[in-house]
């Protein structure tokens, strides 16, 4: 139905040259991202094809499935998959969660242990290595049933680094160590700081909110917002006797392939190994001992990085490892341009002594998680941005902070690293004319 109002917008869009969504202009020290990157269904679909099927994506941690037959299922890149430790090989297998017969899910529990995975629909049965083992009434297939061909379909590529299992739907992707590039060193710092072996703590935070996933990427290592957004958290720290002097200061590091980290000192304590009043006086000697152990093993410089320095690490495109007042691992997946599913875990040293584990989890909950003193306010901020985009009038987000200087932890260079890689992967799919 015509409104009777002549609009010239479509014509303008046709006339407009194809500009990149990411406007990176070193000459003027200005970096901008067009807001359609956060709102366009076209961009969202292109991201699924060009980013989430062409990257290494975190599936889970090997510690979640220590025994043969142990499994966890979860969506990866929007697809249901499951990870199971093979009973014959002891290998970590990641399968598409679909029966090779007519499609039903073969793994229908979130976690557990099983020798076989039976599709309940027609009772086709597979073992933990994916091999098809049973087909009822197989004589009915005149051409026979090829048991080797009809095993569970593996995700194209599966590799792990220090227990972190990644999968890719792209058979031609570079190997995981090459992909991780400089991020490997930071995973090493986290794991070695935990004594060399880590595990996921039982209990998962699974929450969603109404904003574009890339806003949470930015937020996960945004030093600039901490003081303003999380004022109530810092007030809480003061109330328990934490010394805020010294504040938050540090630097940003480009780790290659879209990965980046901010590393910085902070007022809050760290279970490994920086004491604060929250931990109680009785914890002082234990935390000092942890630190001394790391110095003995890794030298003063590396031990300092492990114990006193915080890390907010992005492994492109959507894995966050934040080693702060506790260690959290989180994935972010878009279910729509304005909706993100977050799954978050607590990572801890394997066999951590009980009092240390308790303090770690206590420290986690001060800031992190859907019931923490900070995360809900981040959700509010990101939903607020998404709502602001709908207002129109302003086309670009500015991410120029700290250009032209050695980037600091509260600058935005780490976000620019992400966005440059994003633009590169999206290619022609991320240009202004295409986004209209």
């Amino acid at each position, binding site marked *: 139905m015509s409104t009777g109002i002549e609009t010239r917008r479509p014509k303008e869009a046709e006339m407009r040259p194809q500009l990149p969504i990411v406007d990176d202009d070193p000459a003027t020290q200005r970096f901008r991202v067009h807001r359609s990157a956060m709102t366009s269904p076209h961009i969202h679909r292109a991201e699924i094809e060009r980013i989430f099927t062409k990257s290494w994506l975190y599936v889970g941690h090997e510690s979640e499935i220590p025994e043969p037959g142990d499994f966890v299922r979860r969506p990866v890149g929007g697809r249901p998959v499951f990870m199971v430790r093979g009973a014959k090989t002891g290998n970590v297998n990641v399968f598409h969660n679909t029966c090779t017969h007519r499609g039903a899910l073969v793994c229908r529990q979130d976690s557990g242990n099983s020798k076989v995975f039976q599709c309940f629909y027609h009772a086709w049965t597979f073992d933990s290595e994916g091999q098809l083992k049973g087909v009822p009434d197989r004589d009915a297939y005149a051409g026979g049933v090829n048991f080797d061909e009809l095993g569970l379909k593996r995700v194209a590529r599966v590799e792990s680094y220090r227990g972190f299992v990644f999968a890719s739907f792209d058979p031609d992707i570079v190997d995981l160590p090459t992909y991780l590039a400089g991020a490997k060193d930071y995973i090493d710092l986290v794991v070695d700081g935990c004594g060399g072996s880590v595990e996921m*703590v039982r209990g*998962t935070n699974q*929450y969603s909110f109404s904003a574009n996933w890339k806003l949470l990427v930015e937020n996960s290592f945004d030093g600039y917002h901490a003081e303003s957004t999380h004022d109530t958290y810092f007030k809480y720290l003061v109330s328990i006797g934490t010394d805020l002097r010294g504040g938050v200061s540090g630097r940003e590091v480009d780790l290659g392939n879209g990965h980046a980290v901010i590393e910085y000192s902070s007022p809050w304590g760290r279970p490994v190994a920086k004491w604060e009043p929250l931990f109680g006086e009785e914890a002082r000697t234990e935390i000092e001992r942890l630190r001394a152990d790391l110095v003995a093993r890794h030298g003063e410089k590396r031990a300092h990085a492990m114990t006193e320095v915080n890390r907010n690490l992005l492994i492109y495109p959507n894995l966050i490892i934040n080693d702060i007042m506790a260690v959290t691992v989180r994935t972010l997946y878009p279910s729509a341009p304005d909706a993100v599913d977050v799954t978050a875990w607590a990572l801890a040293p394997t066999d951590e002594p009980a009092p240390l*584990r308790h303090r770690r989890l206590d420290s986690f909950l001060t800031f992190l998680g*859907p019931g923490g003193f900070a995360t809900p306010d981040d959700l509010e901020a990101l939903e607020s941005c998404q709502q602001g985009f709908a207002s129109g009038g302003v086309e670009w987000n500015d991410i120029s902070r700290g250009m032209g200087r050695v980037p600091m932890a509260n600058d935005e260079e780490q976000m620019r690293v992400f966005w440059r890689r994003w633009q590169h992967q999206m290619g022609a799919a991320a240009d202004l004319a295409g986004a209209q």
Partner: protein
Amino acid sequence: MTAATVAVSRQQIEDFLYAEAELLDSWALDAWLQLFDEDAKYEVPSNDALDGDPAHDLMLIDDNHARLAARVERLNSRRAHREYPHSRTNHQVFNVRVEGSAEDISVTASFTVWRFRAGRSSCYVGRYRYRLRRTDDGFRIAAKRAELDMTDLRNVGDVAIIL
């Protein structure tokens, strides 16, 4: 302690829980905090580990009295952005069961907590587990635990309100 020797009726407990719900729904959080003993706990376990123990499992909330007081102070301020302005909530309590002695009372109840804010509605469903103590002027909360029946928080986003 004459009070402690008097048997506790379910109706008395229900009246207490309804009064607590009213304090929460009217955002009278300072008065609500007064219901808790100094050694009290407020816990919400993760959706996938309802039997979670804060000593070794990741919870959503594990507050001792000091942190609960900090939570109240935070929610009372204008800087708890997720809850400023506050949600409109409706804490509903059902299926109340009472066990134990008058000094140490175990209560389980079903709950539905509706939360409305900025045109959005969300609903928390689950089971409360309380430990209450009888005093001369009513009951005090020694422990409150809210176990969520939802398999995850996808539809509610967070637990920024008090359940």
